[in-house]
């Protein structure tokens, strides 16, 4: 089912991704930071590369490209903080490219893409310190976040920043919703990444998953109607062997 859709992603046709409200919020946040003349902070999470949360980090980096381009266009200062050593060169390159694309390569400052620390809390404190010192006006966090989400959200709020955050780590979303102005929920960050990067592999993956979700939706809808009507036909059918 998914495999056939993979074929179609090979250039035969490509899906369009729906508008993701969080991305508009990012534009707004960058705009406001520019108006106030204060910097922006971005974090792609602490997921790193080469683990099961890699897709989240990659989505974060795609959004970073978007943020950097906006920042370069509006001439706002952008701070990017990194937790994993292997992400640093990637992020720096992405920011540089985006500045180039926005026609402001001279504004790119490689010291503003900083690797703080691999240790979770050391990184978190570095970020909180930076947000406080630089009085950031926009704090954007997209990627894999764990316990540090709490510290970031609090630090950003105290710095008076507009905050846009998103992660697929479900148990951290509550803190982002409670403390940030806009929150991307779960898989939304992956879709946002695909929306920006237009990477055919990512697009195809999301498309395939959508179809599978439609199957699930149809089965549940039919199943619950049958079960309310007192029939357990579908229930019995699905409980049988797969093969």
């Amino acid at each position: 089912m998914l495999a056939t859709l993979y074929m179609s992603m090979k250039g035969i046709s490509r899906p369009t991704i729906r508008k993701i409200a969080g991305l508009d919020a990012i534009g707004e946040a960058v705009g406001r930071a520019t108006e106030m003349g204060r910097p922006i902070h971005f974090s792609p999470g602490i997921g790193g590369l080469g683990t099961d949360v890699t897709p989240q980090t990659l989505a974060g980096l795609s959004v970073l490209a978007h943020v950097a381009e906006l920042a370069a266009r509006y001439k706002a200062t952008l701070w990017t903080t990194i937790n994993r050593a292997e992400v640093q060169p990637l992020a720096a390159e992405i920011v540089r490219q985006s500045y180039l694309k926005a026609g402001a390569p001279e504004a790119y400052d490689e010291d503003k893409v900083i690797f703080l620390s691999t240790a979770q809390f050391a990184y978190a404190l570095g970020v909180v310190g930076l947000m406080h010192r630089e009085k950031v006006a926009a704090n954007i966090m997209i990627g894999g976040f764990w316990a540090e989400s709490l510290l970031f959200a609090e630090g950003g709020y105290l710095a008076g920043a507009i905050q846009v955050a998103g992660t697929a780590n479900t148990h951290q979303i509550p803190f982002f919703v409670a403390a940030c102005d806009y929150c991307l929920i779960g898989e939304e960050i992956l879709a946002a990444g695909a929306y920006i990067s237009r990477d055919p592999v990512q697009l195809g993956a999301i498309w395939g998953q959508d179809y599978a979700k439609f199957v699930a939706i149809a089965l549940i809808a039919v199943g619950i109607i049958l079960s309310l009507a007192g029939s357990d036909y579908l229930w019995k059918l699905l409980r049988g062997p797969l093969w």
Partner: protein
Amino acid sequence: MMEENEMSFFDKLEKVDPRLIYILVFLIVSLPLMRPLGLPISMSPMTVAFYDAVEKVNPGDVVVVSIDYSAASSPEQYPQTKAVIHHLATKGAKIIGLGFWADGTPFIDSALKDVFGKSKDHPKYGTDFVNLGWIPSQEVGMKALGGDVQGTCPKDYYGTSTATIPMMKDVKTGKDFKMVITLSSGTPGVPEWIRQIQAQYGVTFLYGVTAVGAPGMRVYFPAQAAGGLEGLAGAAEYEVLLIKYGYKGTLAPPMDSQSLSHLLVIAFIVLGNVGYVLRKHGKAK
């Protein structure tokens, strides 16, 4: 959002030194430990379902107790572990202790010692309970365990060959497990056990999880998991149910701390938001 010149009472409150808050937290948590309030412990349906499932265990049934947590969450999960092993022992189950988290392995030994008094030197070690120690490679390890128990755990935690342990003679594959109980705080944990053992061999499956994981695990109840202990509250409720087996719980004072600390969090959320709403309202004028 916060202009310096119009700093109201609530703005000032927001800028209070966090160290004051920290000290308050210390006190709120410590006081009930020294002087318990003795609030009654309520009952959650998940805990009752867990208890009922263990009640159905017959003497001689093989039950796997898997320690899939690390020291970090031991304050929540170690009390669960002890209570579960105690309950299983009173039911006469044959207990297999093992674990997929490297950090958790020493807890199997401690829990056995706490419940039975001794672990390896206990006269019933090897007939009524056994500690197979750690199995690597997470989900791959679980699959291997289901396929060949003795091949995956060739020796127990103390270095004895598994094949020579009496109670392991008839435990060859996942089919020989009557019940699996995981005490888990992450990956590998509940979904992996369900995928590799519960779905494959149809064994009764129960879990004890940290409170962080609990909401997400509800989706497996009741068909895939027959019940669950949720965090410290789950453990405390379970202890209450076990009183009739002479189990001496230790969690009543901690639950009082829990009550007070929840009230503290709620009070702070309300306080913080009163200022926020007033300010927003003031600006709207």
